[in-house]
Each structure stands twice: as C-alpha cells, then as structure tokens.
C-alpha cells in the first residue's frame, strides 16, 4: 500500500508538471487546465491522506478502496468528456457563424463595388 501511494504521488506531480508546461507553451488554455489540475490535486491529497478515502469507501459499501477510487475516477472522466463535447459543439457553432458572416461581408463588398462601378460609367 505504501509503495502504491508513493507511485501515485509521483505520477500526480509529474502530471501537474506536464499540464503546467503545456499551459506555459501555449498549447493548453489556462481555463481548461484548471479542471485537470484540480483533479490531480484531489488525487494527490487522497494519496497523502488515504484514511478519508478508506472511510468513504466503507460507508458507501465498496468492497475495496481501489474499487471506490476507480469508480470516482471513471465518473470524473465521463464528466470531463461530456464537457469537452460541449466545448466542441460551441466551437462548431462559432465556426458556422464565422464562415457565414465572412460570406455576408464579402457579398456586401462585392455589391458595393459593383454599384460604384456602374455609377462611375
């Protein structure tokens, strides 16, 4: 159990460093990194102070604490995936509007040019 906790702690720290570097390199927006950092921080806390996890697992009726951890992790990942889908959907909408607005602007410009051409003649 002790070595497992050490491994988890090291993995968490490595993951945090990775996320921080992605943010500083501009590959990940800070607002999306917060989610991952928070999650890692909670995992780190659970690895350092495992007693509350054991207790919660027992109270909620899980056979082993690891099952409880897996369950919580899976749940969080699902939630994160859903939120990512929402982000993608929002961006599709933005792109849709952008492409349309560019087309409308170009059309307006063309029509203006055409009008000024005919009025010049």
């Amino acid at each position, binding site marked *: 159990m002790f070595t497992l906790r050490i491994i988890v702690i090291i993995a968490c720290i490595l993951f945090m460093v990775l996320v921080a570097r992605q943010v500083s390199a501009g590959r990940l927006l800070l607002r999306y990194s917060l989610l991952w950092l928070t999650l890692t921080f909670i995992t780190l806390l659970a690895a350092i102070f495992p007693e509350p996890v054991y207790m919660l697992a027992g109270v909620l009726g899980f056979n082993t604490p690891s099952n409880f951890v897996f369950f919580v992790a899976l749940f969080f990942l699902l939630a994160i995936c859903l939120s990512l889908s929402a982000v993608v959907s929002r961006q*599709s909408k933005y*792109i*849709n509007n952008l*492409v*349309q607005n*560019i*087309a*409308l602007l*170009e*059309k*307006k410009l063309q029509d203006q040019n055409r009008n000024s051409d005919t009025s010049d003649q």
Partner: protein
Amino acid sequence: MKIIIIIPAYNEADSIVSVVQEVIEAGYEYVVVNDGSKDRTLRICEEHGFSVLNLRDNLGIGGAVQSGHKYAREQEFFIDIQFDGDGQHDASFIEELIKPIIDGEADLVVGSRFLSDEGGFRSTFMRRVGITWLSFLIKIFGGIKITDPTSGFRACGPRAIELFCREYPIDYPEPESIVTAIGQGLRVKEVPVMMRERKKGSSSIGRLSSMYYMFKVSLAIFILGITRPSKKR
C-alpha cells in the same frame, strides 16, 4: 413585396447555370449560396455574373440555407424561398408556394410532392417509408400533418426567417426545423408541388448514412418534442 430565392449549391457545376436561369426567367431575385464546393461551381457562377454568397468552407446544407436566411434578413427581404441547386425544383410553383405567406395564412410553407395526385417524381420506395415515419413523428410532437417533411422546396415569411437566422439545424435540417417552427408558434402549411428527378449529382443523403439520418432526425424531433413546453419563450 421583396422576395428572394435562396439556391444552396454544393458541387452543382453541371446544373447551377440552368437552375439560376430558370429562376431569373421566372422573374425573381436570387442568391446562390456556394457551400464550399470543391468543383467549378463558384467559378461558373462568377463567369456568368450570378449573385453568389460564397462560404469558404463546407457548412452542410443547414449552414448554407441559414446563411441565405441571414442574407435575406440583412437585405430586408419579406419572403425567402429555398430552391435546390440540383434542378429538382420547378420555379413555376414558386407563386403557389408564397401565396399563403402573402395572404397572411402561414409563416413557413413547405412544397409537398405528396399532396396532389398529379404525379411527378416521388422518390424511391425506401425513402418514402422514411418520409412516412417522419410525418408520423411530426404529427405526434408537432400536432400538424406534414406529408413531405424532407422537402427542400420551402418558403419562409418574416417570422420564419427571423427564427431560422437564430437557430437552424446544421445537417439534415428540414424535418427538424419544421418542429422548431411549430414549437415557436409559427404557422406551417403545405402546398402541392411537383418535383423532377435529379438530373445530375446525388442527394445530400447517401445510402450509407440514411440510417444515421433517420435516427438523428427522429432523435432531434423527439428531443424538441419533449422539451417544447418549457422552451417556449
């Protein structure tokens, strides 16, 4: 009364000229929406001096038609009509299509292949089965009988233009948008039209994706149907 024909076109290089000429001969203003075509559609339109709204990327039929609605709103057209760029639709029916809107009886008018007995092209058997199913769904969730929900030959009055500028489904939009319109309290009406068999090009719905299409549209109508009462603004 300002009226404009919206002609969505995706890779319609072979048919676009005859379609636009048909509309011009019928005496209407029009705009071609080039939906990021990969063929010579845009070039041909420019060579002929057609009025084109050019989408830089392919948005799909929904995004293309919606930009037509936005153009109609911006230019303060009173009615806009969706008229496919593949030569399926017949411009001589436009007058009947817009009549209910001019008479103040409807906000959205759908041209239906199935309302009259006069024949014309009526799609394949399997597609008709799908259409019957969608009709049934719209009847349940919208309470109105629409015989040809996938028809892309439609006329929109001011309220429908306003609504579709705000929200319009991205892919396979026709049946879903009918339910949206009903849900927002718009009056939807059908008039009989005849359609021609598509000369060139293929339907926006491929054979492989038709199952996905039916599922997606059914789901969309279902979700709209069950969330409608709370969504009314």
